[in-house]
């Protein structure tokens, strides 16, 4: 039996390399570390005003972190900047076991494992840092 944490859907997300990489001349970028494990996430954004044209993630981290980064990038691309807060709310709900959002509910099994919450939250924190007080 594999740990429910590592079900097919989450592993597929972790292996989703569609938006992996960097953006040359990104409008916004941020790199964040998780000091407890040394993991590192970089998120690059190409913006047109409030609209997010393109997102790339570059993760040195665990499968959960990579799955979260890929999920976030896919959710934000083409959306407005406000979509970040909405997605963060959906992840929180998934961790609390209180969502049926088709995109984020794959992270629901992480809810029971507090030590891994930071892994899935790190990409959202990096996005928040990158998009903060934009003008």
């Amino acid at each position: 039996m594999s740990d429910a944490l590592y079900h097919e859907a989450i592993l597929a997300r972790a292996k989703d390399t569609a938006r992996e990489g960097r953006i040359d001349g990104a409008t916004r970028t941020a790199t964040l570390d998780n000091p407890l494990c040394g993991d590192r996430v970089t998120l690059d954004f190409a913006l047109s005003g409030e609209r997010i044209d393109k997102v790339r993630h570059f993760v040195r981290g665990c499968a959960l972190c990579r799955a979260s980064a890929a999920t976030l990038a896919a959710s934000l691309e083409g959306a407005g900047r406000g979509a970040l807060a909405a997605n963060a709310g959906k992840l929180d709900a998934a961790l609390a076991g209180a969502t049926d959002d088709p995109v984020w509910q794959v992270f629901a099994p992480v809810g029971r494992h507090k030590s891994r919450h930071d892994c899935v939250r790190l990409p959202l924190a990096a996005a928040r840092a990158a998009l903060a007080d934009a003008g």
Partner: protein
Amino acid sequence: MSSASAALRRQFPILTPGLAYLDSAASAQMPVPVLDAVRTFETSQRANVKRGVHRLAEAATEAYAQARGRVAAYLSVPADEIVFTGGTTASINLVAHAFGSLLKPGDEIVLSGLEHHANLVPWQMLAARGGITLRFLPITGDGRIDLSALPATLGPRTKLVTLAHVSNVTGAIVDTAPVVAAAKAVGARVLLDGAQRVPHGPVDIGALGIDFYAFSGHKLFAPHGVGVLWAKAELLDAMPPFMGGGEMIARVELSGSTWAKGPAKFEAGTPPIGAAVGMGAACDWLSGLPWAAIAAEESRLTQRLLDGLQATPGVRILGPSGLQGRAPVVSFDLAGAHPHDVCQIMDSKGVALRGGHHCAQPLHGRFDLAGSTRASLALYSDDSDVDRFFEGLAEARRVLL
């Protein structure tokens, strides 16, 4: 003795019928809920905290975080302002180094003449290291910090006022409002040494308007080897770390390192996990107790001690003669008898007291004494303790005088 206090007392297995434990200001005893919380941690949750993802590591990390939350709740402060240390002494040394490193030669720190050595020696060492000047509030004849000296003692160079919330010798409770007002007026920070305050009920630290608060687990019905420093988040941000090592870093390279944020920055190395869990359990247990009734009982017993001592020839009480602004700590001198002899003879009657300078030599110097004898109460104290105390005192006088 009320049946409520009898039920409380039964929670303390060490308090056997023959024992009048009147040394709680040195170390208070541990109730069953605390003993059990520590045992449960050690036998079913024990692991190192934070970095681990296995079940025990998760359980230990959760228990440690819960302990921080429970302590924070007892003090009405956010959990991320609670730093676990080794004790009051370690907490104050942390501030003396971390906050102290932000000070400049010529800056001044204000203390009082009744401080425990833990709130004096670290500042003397900082003064020697950093060219800081220490200034002292004098002590009144009844063992209080003389707050009328605030205006003359504080000035534009004052950067910190650091005082015992409750004296471990005289039991005097400092009136914090004028201290905080005077400090604010000159832009100084305020640290209170709460070691003797927290065992007597929850403290609303936020309401005091202070900046730092320090105390020890072992006086709060929890294990030895854990303590707390509470500091405002802005100060935790502004201060450099004190000790270096694991857990307090953001990133380490051979050429240099950067620091974690929040309390973690000040918790270098593996913390005293089991002891912290015990302290959390103690705070949780204490938070549920009927404090108005306990305070009334502690006061009633203190009054009995004061009355009986005042009626005893040759006794001089070091501290306020009444209950106003006074914790249940009663120290006295018996003319012609040395405190250790008094304690030893009273011990033979089952009465546990402490004799000596109680780590407050300057205060005893102020009273022209080398030491004193101290009886200190806690929530489990009852009339039988006070009865035994006076029986023992009569015996000590018979033998020694």
